[in-house]
């Protein structure tokens, strides 16, 4: 695990998630009404069907690092939004606003437009 794992930053985010890009099967298990922001290091970015999977290692306030799994849109949707398998790689430090699992477990959904590098650059250029 990279040493530069960033501190977990969970806060009530005001941004509405890009739900339209996600909605191919039900995303009811994710809490769209209470998005949160997490910061961490990309552990793995799987550009796979039916949904892309982004695993981010996040260090919590207690100093314990945990892997969060984030489910995105179908590869076909994300390619057309400008995100490809090469957009993220292990070690990238990112900040992403997600819709978390209702259970509170380390999981959620993400939209390409809601992912930024630590320096503020968007991973996908706005259209």
């Amino acid at each position, binding site marked *: 695990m990279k040493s530069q794992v960033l501190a977990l930053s969970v806060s009530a985010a005001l941004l509405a998630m890009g739900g339209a890009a996600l909605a191919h099967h039900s*995303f*009811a298990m994710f809490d769209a009404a209470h998005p949160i922001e997490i910061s961490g290091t990309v552990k793995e970015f799987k550009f796979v*069907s*039916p949904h892309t999977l982004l695993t981010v290692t996040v260090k919590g306030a207690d100093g314990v690092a945990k892997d969060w799994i984030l489910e995105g849109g179908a*590869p*076909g949707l994300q390619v057309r939004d400008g995100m490809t398998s090469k957009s993220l790689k292990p070690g990238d430090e990112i900040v992403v606003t997600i819709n978390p699992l209702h259970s509170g477990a380390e999981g959620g959904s993400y939209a390409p437009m809601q992912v930024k590098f630590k320096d503020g650059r968007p991973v996908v250029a706005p259209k």
Partner: protein
Amino acid sequence: MLLRGMLSSIALAAVMIAGPVAAQQGVDPGKYPNMAGQWIRVGPPGSFDNTKPPGRGQQAPLTPEYQAIFEANLAEVAVGKSGDDPVHTCIPEGMPRAMSLVLPMEVVITPNTTYILMEYLSMLRRIYTDGRSFPTDEEPSWMGYSIGKWIDEDGDGRFDVFEVETRNLKNPRTFDPSGLPLHKDAETVVKERFYLDKANPDILYDQITTFDHALTKPWTIVRTMRREKKPIWVESICSEGNVHVVIGGEHYMLGGDDLLIPFYKGQPAPDLKHFQQGAK
């Protein structure tokens, strides 16, 4: 028969490789509408009638029994459960939901069959136009058995409407991801009318009428698609990376460590009675 099947397969493969221009060379281009190319959904994904809000906003004419089923589903979703959406576990959407076009489709017209090739979940519709009747002994399927007829409505010697009827469907299916239900008897009949916009031939409409015992009356909607001039195609094989798992009727997700994580607060762990407790 075998030879005919092989020739059809070779012809289909040829048009898929050659692309949309060749996709309609099997028929007289002066007689058939030009539906070649990639068609992309107009409007948002996520609901059957995407001109209306999702969920109750669809105003589906459900029977009281099926409205109650839908309401129970919505109540579960409200407390964080996944709801009734079979696609979570890579079940194909089936008809009529497939025509919601999460991802684009291609239409391939041949003399006896028209194919609709869908990017999403690699779903294929095979619509027979050779004058046959519906079989009585065919196994049901999610895409169903489709028979089509080309219509020259305005009498100008050129087909302008493609009417399709689909039967023999398989469950589980829902109208859309919200869990909007179809009847458990799977006796759905779907009637469609495909036609190009008269003013803009790069717009394709699919008027879909669903006959189903979950409905008090046939439900008609119109889906709109636009022709993409610079198409890209992305493979969609659902089992590649699906992290959704249903065990004992409970829906879980695989976490970042490849172990199950709960969907909602208080969700019970799976029953492991078939495993030796404490074994590593």
